[in-house]
């Protein structure tokens, strides 16, 4: 019972981060601030959800798998954010203007699924 409560609580906190990240992704003006919003959602939101699920895990192997999933998502999100930011910089330098807000959606923008 207590473990169910912990799961509800932690996944809810995770969802709040996802909502905040999605709002940021949709509302922020340029690529870099959107990335900022997105990586917060990915890292903290997923982290809290994984932590919440730990209380439902039957054994330590499942806990280790959950931790691995979070660590890999963290690594991939961080790398993708760096690459997208660099691509946006190159884009701006080559055009001499601000990158068009809609021209290049972030390939990692899974926030769009949760609109």
């Amino acid at each position: 019972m207590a473990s169910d409560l912990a799961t509800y609580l932690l996944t809810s906190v995770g969802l709040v981060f996802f909502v905040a990240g999605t709002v940021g992704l949709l509302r922020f003006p340029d690529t870099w601030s959107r990335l900022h919003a997105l990586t917060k959602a990915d890292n903290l939101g997923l982290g809290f959800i994984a932590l919440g699920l730990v209380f439902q895990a039957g054994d330590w192997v499942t806990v280790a798998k959950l931790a691995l999933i979070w660590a890999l998502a963290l690594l991939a999100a961080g790398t993708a954010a760096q690459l997208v930011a660099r691509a946006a910089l190159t884009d701006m330098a080559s055009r001499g203007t601000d990158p068009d807000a809609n021209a290049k959606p972030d390939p990692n923008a899974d926030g769009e699924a949760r609109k």
Partner: protein
Amino acid sequence: MSGVFFDAVLCALILAAALAAVAGRGLFRAVVFFILYGVLVATAWLRLDAIDVALAEAAIGAGLTGVLLLGAVARLARTGARAHDPPLAVVLTAGLAATGMTAVLGWSFLELPPPQGLQEAVAASLPDSGVENPVTAVLLNFRAWDTLLESIVLLAALIGVWSLTRDEAWGAPAGIPQHVRPGGVLSTFGRVLPPIGVLIGVYLVWAGASRAGGAFQGGTVLAAVILLAAMAGVLRPPRVTARRWRMALVAGPVVFLLAGLAGLGAGAFLTIPPVHAKPLILTIEAALTLSIAVTLALAVLGPPEDAAAAPSPDAKGEER
């Protein structure tokens, strides 16, 4: 009740993503929505209790197809090719045809008689198959023909991709030359992830004997490792003429064929005697995983395009 609600929301998301991928503006955006679509469809497979399919869809449908299409968008952008919007008459006709198709398919689905199901037949023969995962048993034992022919189809597709190489680029590393900042995030990523990826790929194959997973899912993860290492500049993409890579390409079909021929002794082609089933299937699966990984990675990398890196005509057949 809440389960059906979740399914309805998921179906709506799948349809929205498919619509954006098919009819939305901009190729790049369409491909991004297609990747999202793949992830959502994988979730749908989970809901249908088909975990093996969900893994395959996530790894292949969303993952590798996404990489392939994103690379194609970048290459097409370089040629400056653009398409105009179709005329209204075409859109209306297509809409009509599509609506008719959907209506017929939906109606036939609703009219289908209740399935007999092959669960019991598969479960009854499972002890003889050498593995405990029924899907793996069907793939590698009961319907081994399909899988054998499939591994050959993969090879044929790769040969098709390679045949698109221009003469002057033949023998160069597969795909376009990759430029990576040394010491940058991508090259670091390309060094950190492959060991974990290999571990997960091999685990998926191993787990596939008793739980969800198998040669296709594991092979796809390994293909992704090869692709990532190539993109991060850690691994030079294999040359299409490299003999060792070619041997990896044919290992799966060859081992499978040999096992099938050995089955002739037990009665018919591809007969797998229950006594030897487990080691035989594991051997086939290991060889198949290797071939799937290399074939898919090379197919996604595409034909060699860097004519400057191709060997001179008399130095062909170089081994790496």
